């Protein structure tokens, strides 16, 4: 089940990100599905799995992005690892904790990009990119990711209740 899920994420997320997600953009900013998936996996399954999935998804994202090869690979791997650490530290993963984690990790990822990408000249351009790309991106990632986490947690609770009542599902 887990392998199928990871295979689905690896094969499906970047194509969705590059094609259909453009219709769901707000002010030209789309949620970074790869970052959200890596964060959730790291948060739930630990830093090792988060980092590995981050490497794979980042690599695929690099293939379909104009950025330097390896930039997404490293960033997503780092984000997966950090998400795993945060997941370990938090005793109770509430949606608010998830929102804060995603917001923070998306800002970290954005800062790496801000340093690596040429964003124009001078402080005015830097502030413009921070205001128009980095912060909206972090906000969208946090909201979408928290929504996804809430849905997964609800589904998990429902499955647990069914198992307690009727025995294991599989």
């Amino acid at each position, binding site marked *: 089940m887990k392998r199928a899920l990871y295979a689905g994420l690896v094969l499906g997320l970047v194509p969705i990100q*590059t094609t259909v997600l453009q219709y769901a953009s707000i002010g030209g900013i789309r949620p970074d599905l790869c970052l959200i998936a890596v964060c959730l996996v790291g948060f739930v399954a630990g830093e090792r799995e988060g980092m590995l999935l981050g490497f794979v998804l980042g690599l695929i994202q690099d*293939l379909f*992005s*104009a950025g330097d090869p390896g930039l*997404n690979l490293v960033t997503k791997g780092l984000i997966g690892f950090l998400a795993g650490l945060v997941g370990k530290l938090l005793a109770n993963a509430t949606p608010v904790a998830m929102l804060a984690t995603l917001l923070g990790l998306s800002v970290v990822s954005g800062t790496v990009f801000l340093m690596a*990408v*040429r964003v124009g000249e001078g402080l005015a*351009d830097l502030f413009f990119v921070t205001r128009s*790309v980095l912060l909206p991106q972090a906000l969208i990632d946090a909201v979408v990711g928290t929504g996804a986490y809430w849905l997964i947690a609800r589904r998990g609770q429902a499955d647990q209740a069914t198992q307690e009542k009727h025995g294991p599902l599989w």
Partner: protein
Amino acid sequence: MVLVLFALLVSVFLVLPKQTRSLLQHLGQPLAQIVAFPLGALAALDRSLREAWGGYVALRHVYDENHRLRREIEFLRGQNSELREVATASQRLAALLEFKEGTGSETIAAQVIGRDATSWYRALVLNRGERDGIRPEMGVMTQAGVVGRVVKANSSTAVVLLITDPNNAVTGLIQRTRDEGIVEGTVRGLARMKYIPLLSAARVGDTVVTSGLTGGFPKGLVIGSVRSIERVEGDLFQSADITPEVDVSKLEEVLVISTPRQFDERATDAGSLLPKQPEKRER
């Protein structure tokens, strides 16, 4: 007794027919009036029922017809929309083909299948890659002008960095004044021409074309038009904001320039771009 009365009445009828009818007419008038009320009521009821029935039956047919017509309208609307889409695509592709034939450069037509996988770059993903002969640094254009350049080529896809991205730079030429400079993208999604000589007489509205010195573009391909010019006191050069000729947000098909040749420098608009050399090399 009754028979006698009946016989007498018949006799009167036969002897005095006209008078008898008139008498009977007068005697029957009030009765006729009395009977007229229920008759009228019944007739009205009958008419109402007939109308109601007729209406019901007719409405059933109308409902069916309405339903059929609605379905027909929906079908025709769908067909109309499809035909419009085909016509638009056909016009677009015909224009692209005409342009491709007129460029003289060897080009590869490609479809835009997506946008950059991150929000940090202004880039497109094409449905052609190394397998089709696309290599990094090749220029990308449409009949309107410069789109960008290929930065990555996978086996079946390629990533094109748009002219409006700050990481992109193309050598440009102000067509009227012949002043050269470097055209870069800006963070606000426009382009900016830098290093224009201070003595240049460039003005708003001037067309900027590719100079052909660097990159995968031939000389004379339209980049955009000058929007504003900035002259800073003490600077050695001036710079100009440029509105790109191509609306990069609505691109569906593009041409990747595999071997650039020179365009006619006198060309001022995309539609009149002509190759210097008449022979064509088709792929």
